[in-house]
């Protein structure tokens, strides 16, 4: 990137917030996606929405691309830039307003998800989306990727909470969409179009989300199953019994073994599946739901059922699920975490298929995830130096995505398409789907300035 352009960037955001040295470019050449590396030409950290607009306008006029980045925890390569400007939003980190009458929170795009949680929960309010990276992920990133989390089954995902957005368009213009009105049918729903646009249509500067009252009570249960099918049937039958748990998490045998090796939490090694179930709401309802869930689990021949009596006990019960990724990640240097998602009725066949695929390609794949909403995390434990194994891992995942599509599911439940899933998208949405997406992209960004090369 040429010096005068870097200088122009520095004039907007300040010299110390404009990086173009070799070392900086090297470390901004990755996000959390395994294997992917792509060096940007410069990195800027604007401090105001106005600076974001000016940087984007400058790049637009110069024909240089801009890729927004929050904390760089993207799992599909979405925050990587090939020679363009990476715009890191971390300094835009003010919680602007918590409106307790309208139950909305307005935050700048770089606010950390868990910081918003803390702030609203101290007022007895609740912002449910809780992606695994919530302690560092930014709200803007959550909106751009439409992040999910453990509470998705009952409470939905980020898009269910976005009420309004302030967005810088690819030419530097400012677009405000949505607002505090709960009902709003004026024109196309641009909010929903911008959610999960992965930084290709605009860069958010402010995000307004809906809040709900914090549930009064919560109960946590841990259940072991000697048979995988019975665990899967339990999931379906809990829902069929008109109970929607806040959390319904699943660990498969490989994951259980790794967790036990790593954390010694006392999981038996002969079980096929573990479910972590959490119900919340009114105390009386929580009691009823927990009792009904217990009956369903026993009917499906669970070998162990424990309910936490205290918050400390609940924390203990959820240890296995909380350390699942750590336990798997320690086995081998490279950890490929995917998010194939199927209708919840297909959990058992999907887990089976993943296990068979792992055997077929001679790989170790542990599966855990959000069984309640069908969002699984098959996690391949591999070593990037073993080219042959990596190639087999990619073949295995291609087979898993094909199966997910065939079951009426999707190639990504919460990580986004980015660069990593690009080649699978046409299979899922078809030619017409890709064409409509391209047309939308062109309508927003005719010069192709914003986060090019992502999604399709």
């Amino acid at each position, binding site marked *: 990137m040429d010096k005068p352009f870097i200088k122009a960037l520095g004039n907007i955001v300040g010299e110390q917030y404009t*990086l173009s*040295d*070799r*070392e*900086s470019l*090297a*470390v*901004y050449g*990755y*996000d*959390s996606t*395994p294997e992917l590396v792509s060096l940007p030409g410069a990195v800027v*950290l604007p401090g105001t929405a106005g600076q974001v607009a000016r940087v984007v306008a400058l790049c637009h006029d110069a024909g240089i691309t801009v890729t927004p980045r929050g*904390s*760089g*925890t993207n799992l599909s390569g979405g925050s990587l830039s090939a020679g363009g400007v990476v715009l*890191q939003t*971390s*300094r835009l980190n003010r919680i602007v307003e918590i409106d307790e009458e309208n139950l909305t929170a307005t935050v700048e795009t770089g606010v*950390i998800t*868990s910081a918003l949680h803390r702030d609203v929960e101290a007022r007895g309010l609740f912002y449910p989306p809780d992606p695994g*990276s919530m*302690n*560092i992920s930014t709200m803007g990133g959550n909106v751009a990727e439409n992040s999910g989390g453990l509470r998705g089954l009952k409470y939905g995902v980020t898009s269910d909470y976005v009420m309004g957005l302030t967005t810088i368009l690819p030419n530097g213009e400012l677009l405000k969409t949505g607002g505090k009105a709960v009902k709003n049918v004026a024109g196309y729903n641009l909010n929903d179009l911008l959610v999960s646009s992965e930084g290709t249509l605009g860069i958010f500067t402010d995000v307004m989300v809906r809040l709900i009252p914090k549930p009064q009570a919560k109960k946590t249960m841990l259940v072991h199953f000697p048979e995988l099918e019975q665990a899967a049937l339990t999931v379906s039958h809990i829902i069929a019994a008109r109970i929607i748990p806040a959390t319904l998490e699943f660990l498969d045998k490989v994951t259980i073994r790794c967790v036990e090796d790593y954390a010694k939490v006392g999981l038996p090694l002969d079980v096929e599946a573990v479910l972590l179930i959490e119900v919340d709401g009114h105390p009386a309802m929580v009691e009823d739901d927990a009792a009904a869930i217990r009956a369903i689990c026993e009917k499906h021949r669970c070998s162990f059922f424990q309910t936490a009596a205290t918050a400390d006990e609940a924390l203990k019960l959820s240890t296995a699920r909380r350390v699942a*990724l*750590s336990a798997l*990640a*320690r086995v081998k*240097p*490279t*950890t490929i975490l995917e998010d194939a998602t199927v209708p919840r009725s297909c959990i058992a066949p999907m887990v089976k298929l993943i296990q068979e695929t792992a055997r077929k390609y001679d790989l170790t794949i542990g599966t855990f995830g959000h069984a309640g909403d069908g969002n699984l995390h098959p996690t391949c434990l591999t070593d*990037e*130096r073993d080219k042959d194994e990596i190639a087999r891992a990619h073949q295995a995942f291609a087979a898993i995505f094909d199966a997910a599509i065939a079951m009426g599911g999707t190639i990504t439940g919460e990580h986004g398409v980015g660069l990593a899933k690009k080649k699978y998208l046409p299979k899922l949405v078809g030619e017409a789907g890709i064409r409509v997406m391209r047309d939308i992209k062109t309508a927003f960004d005719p010069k192709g300035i914003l986060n090019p090369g992502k999604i399709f």
Partner: protein
Amino acid sequence: MDYEKLINCMRCGMCLPHCPTYKETFLETASPRGRVALVRKFQEGELEASERFLDYLSLCLDCQACASACPCGVNAGELVAEFKCEKKDRDGLSFMEELVLHRLLPHPDRLETAVSPLKLYQRSGLQRVVRKLGLLKMFPPRLSRMEGLLPQLPASPLRRTLQEVTLAQGEERGTVGFFLGCVMSLVFSEASFATVQLLSALGYRVITPKAQKCCGAPNMLASDRAGMEEMARFNVELFSSYDLDFIVTDCGGCGAELKKYGHHLEGDGRAAIFSAKVRDISQLLVEGAALLGERLHPLPYRVTYHDPCHIAHCQGIRNEPRQLLRMVPELDYRELADADACCGSAGTYNIEQPEMADRVLRRKLDTIRNTGADYLVTSNPGCLLQLKQALARTEPQIRVIHLTELLHASMTG
């Protein structure tokens, strides 16, 4: 360097919210994941150890909060330290480093003599005059910063006054070797005296071998691995000549280093045995909690606790100090927000990187203020120096003391 350790980092970013320098800058180069990537790129020959490269790595406090947070068990702080050691092995020590680390530190007598002019400086009233007249502005900034950290020194180092053997009171539970840290002896001798009293009261015979040398942590700060190994070998030899159940220290930094002797001197069986016996004082006191509890008198203070990095992150000790504080009758314990975040002292970091150290410190001071505590308790001399000096300036009503001083005060009523 073990390449495997570098590629274990999966770049997930879980370390970022725990890294003090990332929290201040939001820069990937100032993050644990970034530092691992930089060292990896150096190993792979993609980056050179340029001045800028080294500047980026030098911003690391080595507080190891990232290691506590890492899902994959990567310790970015340690990897950076290892990288610097390898570089130092090639480049050699500077004249000053050679002087301090090899001529002064290994000899407690020389060290004590070197400190005595400072005592004269304080006792003669010269310090008061210098500070009052603002003469420090004429000194180089590093020196004036060091002067600012200088606390009131005790009349004589504890190593000189303490008996080699302190007998157990009541029924004897066992024999412990007391590892008396340099700064504890020279500066916080009252706290270490309290430590010995507590151990004796709990029924331990306490042996303080007078010939012991520095633990070697300062050598590691200067990336002088050979110097550290020499200290380690000497101390292992010395303590092995006694029949000890435990080796105890009340210095977080020493404890963390002593527990690594087995790793540093790989293949040396006695070093491994030595390390396995090392306990932070809080660990031993908790073991004698029942006995200690009976002897504690009320202390009606509002108290909060700051986790030293070398205790929480390097040794994984978090519950014990809190459990001990909660045992004191009428003590109003208040948990500090982000209690295990670094205070910015970090060995010599507050001298080497004053600007970042102050930013990290400011955050700590805010959280301390918010507790409304009268007493801040911690158990590492670096933190004590840093926080005493800072709080004396901004919150003079908050007193900073070592854990054992508070417990001893409660015990003696």
